[in-house]
């Protein structure tokens, strides 16, 4: 192998890179499994997640039903696979809402400063001061219970975090000389915002988005667990866990299966977030 003849310093660098990419690889693997389940649920799931089979209810794991069946005889594995779809959908839209709203608010606050900054950021702090789950419940209560509202509610929870990050990154960029240089060649505010500032602040925001994704999955499950998210018979890790709780003694797999799925999914996105930060953060580079 060619690596053997490499000099010591480059071997060292290679090993360092490998460690840096390892987190990303593990996280990426977990995330890909979840994503594949979400996209190809019809192909992967052995049964329909809705078909009742009362004669087979509360069966333990077997070769026919790998993760057993639930209280009305639905295949647990198929439901866990289909639930990935809802989690990913909700997380995508929610992170999208948070990223978009937060980026716009943060960049505008930093760029225009003064009272615009003051009002926007105080409002963000107001949102920040609520516990996330409480805020989500309040928002769901006022918006009404539906999947779309759950996505929006979770998205709104993310806006303050993204806006603070975007504001800090923008303040950093604004101190750079290329912003002055842009003014010197006659760029308008709009063009400076989109061409000079935006491309220079996306990296930290994308890293944050990966971590927020994990949190969104968790929040969606929490809302569904409380009955505010996905409504039965729609499978969601949250409401499956909620149902499984009632059968912990007779059929523990009903709680363990969605719980493990959630755990691995959240772990995957967190690892991707950490991995991305390590890859992009110049301070952590060798």
């Amino acid at each position: 192998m060619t690596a053997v003849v490499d000099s010591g310093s480059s071997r060292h660098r290679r090993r360092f890179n490998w460690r840096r990419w390892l987190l990303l690889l593990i996280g990426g693997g977990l995330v890909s499994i979840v994503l594949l389940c979400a996209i190809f649920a019809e192909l992967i799931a052995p049964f329909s997640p809705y078909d009742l089979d009362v004669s087979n209810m509360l069966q333990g794991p077997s070769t026919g039903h790998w993760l057993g069946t639930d209280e009305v005889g639905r295949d647990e594995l198929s439901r866990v696979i289909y639930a990935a779809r809802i989690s990913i959908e909700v997380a995508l839209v929610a992170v999208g809402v948070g990223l978009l709203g937060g980026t716009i608010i943060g960049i505008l606050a930093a760029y225009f400063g003064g009272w615009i900054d003051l009002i926007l950021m105080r409002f963000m702090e107001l949102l920040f001061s609520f516990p996330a789950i409480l805020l989500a419940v309040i928002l769901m209560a006022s918006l009404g219970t539906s999947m779309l509202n759950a996505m929006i509610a979770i998205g709104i929870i993310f806006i303050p975090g993204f806006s603070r990050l975007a504001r800090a990154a923008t303040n950093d960029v604004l101190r750079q000389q290329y912003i002055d240089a842009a003014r010197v060649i006659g760029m308008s505010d709009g063009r400076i915002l989109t061409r000079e500032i935006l491309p220079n602040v996306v990296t930290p925001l994308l890293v944050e988005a990966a971590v927020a994704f994990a949190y969104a999955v968790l929040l969606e499950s929490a809302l569904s667990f409380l009955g505010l998210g996905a409504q039965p018979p729609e499978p969601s890790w949250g409401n499956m866990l909620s149902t499984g709780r009632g059968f912990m003694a007779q059929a523990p797999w009903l709680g363990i299966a969605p719980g493990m799925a959630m755990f691995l999914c959240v772990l995957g996105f967190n690892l991707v977030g950490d991995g991305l930060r390590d890859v992009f953060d110049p301070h952590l580079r060798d």
Partner: protein
Amino acid sequence: MGNLRAHQCTDRPPTLAIDNLQVEIAMQRGLARVVDKVNIEVWPKEIVGVIGESGSGKTMTALSVLGLIPQRAQLSGEIRLSGQALTRLPEAAFRKLRGDRIAYIPQDALRALNPVLRVDMQVGEPFNIHRRTPWQEAKRRALGLLSAVHIPEPQRRAHEYPHQFSGGMQQRAMIAMGLALEPELLIADEPTTALDVTVQAQVLRLLREIRESHGTAILFITHDLGVISELCDWVYVMYAGSVLEQGPVETIFDNPAHPYTQMLLRATPTVGTVHEDLLSIPGTIPQPFELPAGCRFADRCPYRFAPCGREPPLLQANSGHEARCWLLVESPVSSAASIS
């Protein structure tokens, strides 16, 4: 040479006329007058040097011309670009001039380039901003500009990012961007300070080339006397916000009239001389919020005498050559101390 400046005999107005410019900034320690009664003219095809140490107001003068002084700064006086008054021009109208009729080349090119955009996108940007040129065409024009400023292999280099360029190439890319729309006036703010000497010479040669080929007037701001003597036709010496001496470059270098200029020249090492007598000027430049009532240089001046308590006007030394020093009209009563 005649005492009229290049093109002064034509009926065209000067490319840049700064008339009695004054810039004041309210600071905690008082009102700072950073530019005071400054008159500067740049005629078409002329390279005019402004020299001064840090804090002499040279950069603030340049920012005034670009309309980019800090918001809390108060500006008075007149600035005209080819006869058009720029002071009191609304920001939207000013923005149309920047990058189009006035270009600016900063000191640190790398920091002035956006790190995440390819070089051709940035050099072509003025076309898109001011002429609404489509990007494809703007990038093609950028390529032409990059080869005009002697970037090697422009086809390949145009697609690179700024950090992949050497310091000299970054500065040349900035110059290319400045030249994009063939501005009447190019303001170069210490463009060679961050470069090593051989690259410096290339950039200076390029600026001279541009003056010849495009007829661009250049206002060159620096603290480097060597660069001024090599490049400029006319020089303004600034000190503590005001012009202490101005004149044709040969006269200033051969026969400086103001003690500050004299000392500045003696403080500059030159090749081929022994520097036993290399001079440093004692004292520091006065703070802009506590300017002395009389001559600003009096505190550091070895020839100080009674009239220095009043501020001298610009007095004629030779035709075209003026200095703000009473020595030109009055002789000291007592014998002045020698500089050395």
